[in-house]
């Protein structure tokens, strides 16, 4: 750095600028060496290695970011939750299913619970266990018709809509269908706020649910005379 000014490497004069102690000395013919054939070959070798690095980086990045680019839909499958006779009308029950995409290493973590609310006939609501706030497991209390979250106190009504607490929305719902008396849900992914398949769901379901709910009100809430 200081070579052109101070080729002998003498101690620098009193200088207000901060000085990095330098032990480098001028190499004779440095300038010529910079333009030699060897220097050119060295640069060429750098270029070659950069190219090899890129060739290597592409598959590594593909491996690393593979999960990020996989579409949500490829994870999801129809999963059976058992015959609908397991779910008495007007009740909400906890049921476990094995995640459709799983490996041996998953152990118990691939057993996913969900809340099944049998409204009437073939009308169901299947809620994810995860609170819409931060994913903690919500618990159903049939006495007060509420889902409560133990983490930050998110509370939801029987139909999964937000009652109080920090969640911004109601419980996540799985798509379901009833085939030959068996309840099937379209599952396979942990629901989060970025999981669009789940976010769209309640909008589709609002119409049949609310009408079923309206029919259900007399039997589920037996109001005694005041």
């Amino acid at each position, binding site marked *: 750095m200081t070579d052109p000014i101070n080729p002998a490497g003498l101690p620098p004069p009193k200088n207000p600028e901060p000085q990095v102690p330098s032990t480098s000395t001028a190499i004779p013919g440095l300038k010529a060496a910079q333009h030699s054939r060897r220097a050119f070959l060295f640069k060429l070798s750098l270029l070659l290695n950069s190219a090899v690095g890129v060739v290597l980086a592409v598959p590594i990045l593909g491996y690393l970011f593979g999960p990020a680019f996989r579409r949500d839909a490829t994870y999801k499958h129809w999963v059976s939750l058992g015959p609908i006779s397991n779910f008495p009308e007007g009740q909400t029950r906890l049921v476990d299913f094995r995640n459709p995409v799983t490996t041996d290493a998953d152990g118990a973590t691939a057993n996913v619970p969900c809340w099944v609310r049998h409204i009437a006939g073939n009308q169901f609501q299947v809620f994810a*266990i995860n609170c819409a706030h931060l994913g903690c497991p919500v618990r159903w209390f049939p006495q007060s018709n509420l889902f409560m979250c133990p983490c930050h106190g998110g509370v939801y009504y029987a139909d999964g809509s937000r009652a109080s607490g920090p969640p911004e929305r109601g419980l996540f719902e799985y798509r379901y269908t009833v085939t030959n008396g068996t309840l099937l849900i379209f599952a396979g992914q942990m629901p989060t706020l970025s999981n669009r398949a789940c976010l769209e769901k309640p909008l589709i379901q609002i119409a049949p649910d609310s009408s079923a709910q309206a029919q259900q009100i007399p039997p589920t809430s037996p109001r005694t005379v005041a």
Partner: protein
Amino acid sequence: MSRLKQNAIGIYAWFERRLGLTGPITEAAAHPTPPTSASWWYVFGSAATVLFILQIVTGILLALVYTPSAGEAWSSLQFLNHDITLGWFLRAIHGWGSDFMVAIVLIHMAQVFLFGAYKYPRELTWILGVFLLLFTLGMAFTGQVLRFDQDAYWGLGIGASIVSRFPWIGGPLVHMMLGGPIIAGQTFSRFFALHVFIIPGMLLAFVALHVWMVLHLGVNEWPMPGRIVSKATYDREYHELTSKVGVPFVPDAAWKDAVFAAAIILAVIACALFFGPFGPSGQPDPTIIQTAPKPDFFFLWIYAVLAYLPPELETPFLFIAPTIVIGAMLLLPLVAGEGEKHWSRRPVAVLMVSVIAVALGVFTHLGTFTPWSPIMDAWSGAPTPVACLKGRSPLERQGALVLQNKQCRNCHALGGAGGMRGPALDSIAARMTEDQMIRQVLQGGGNMPAYGNALSPAETRALVAFLMTLRGNNLTPAVDGSHILSQSEAAPSSGQIPSSPSTQ
């Protein structure tokens, strides 16, 4: 004897001829240090390094037995705790070592900040130190995941839920974090890789650079009020100081580092011996939902902040606040690289450290007993205090039953037992009138769900009748002022409270 000595010297010389390390090591060890810096205040950095080495050694020892698989990690921890000789002790040292390391790194950072040691020419040392803090916290979080129990499982769920809130790329980020669609084997494996390979590798590299810069730039001198750091003069001043009165780092300053490091390791051993290892708690089986997940000690404050943020502020806060905080820490030495070092001339710095320490302390304290969490079994586990039932009418006692059965106690304490999510009900009738209670119970609001669908009119009547008897230490019942006014206008002579509770 002298022959033995000669042989030893010969062997040393053989290695030294080939390694050539004695010179550089002696030079580094004896580098001149300002005599004032050979202080008990300057021991935290070396203590953090020693704790890091302890963590590496105990971590490797645990890896001899631990099974890094989502399906088997939990049972291998049980095996370590109960079947391997002193396995519990090694786990305890690793766990307590981690807590001590986070604490010492934080203390080291506060000390460096208050002593102005981040100023010229040590800006980059500080910046690398900020990364070292983040890596240390990263080790603490990923280590908590490897203790693969219920808290770890649901902690990952909380992590994924936070990441999912990231605008636009939230979904791909969640997949990156989980390594798949759910928290399962691949999620566990990538956290294992982070905890055992990636972050320790970064830590080693950054610690090496950090320590190298301390040697290269010299130990920060003891700050004096009025001694201003200026880029133009600092190097000369520091050189003069160390060359005139400097002492060799080894042994003049190093003995204090060594004593403190020994004390810290002893403290870790003592904690491990007396308090034992951390967990594991319940099995990481998501179908066991009877759990109230909680993060480890050093993340409790985040847990508390997340509970207290208004919902609409949460997502912006989660991403903007860390960006600002980390950005400010990184930019600090570049913005304030010159000027006063001494804390007595930097009141804002002292105030900042105090406010941050108090805030973290308060939030951590709140995190230890989570007043925002409903107590999920209070309704069945905490009986109605007898005093609340004495001399009550059948309707009021029926109301007490409703209060229990409808899980009100999960959020409302009575007689000191129950949740703290909502206000305690011991003196509720002194704060709310009957009408207000009915409205609050049926319609909810202000963080309370509406019970209109869950209570029959008879239940509501009984419940409110019971609540009207809860007046603490016989306080005056709450009164609707407008009610009195309207009544007094109609009949000026009667100044009675309209609906007095049926209590004694």
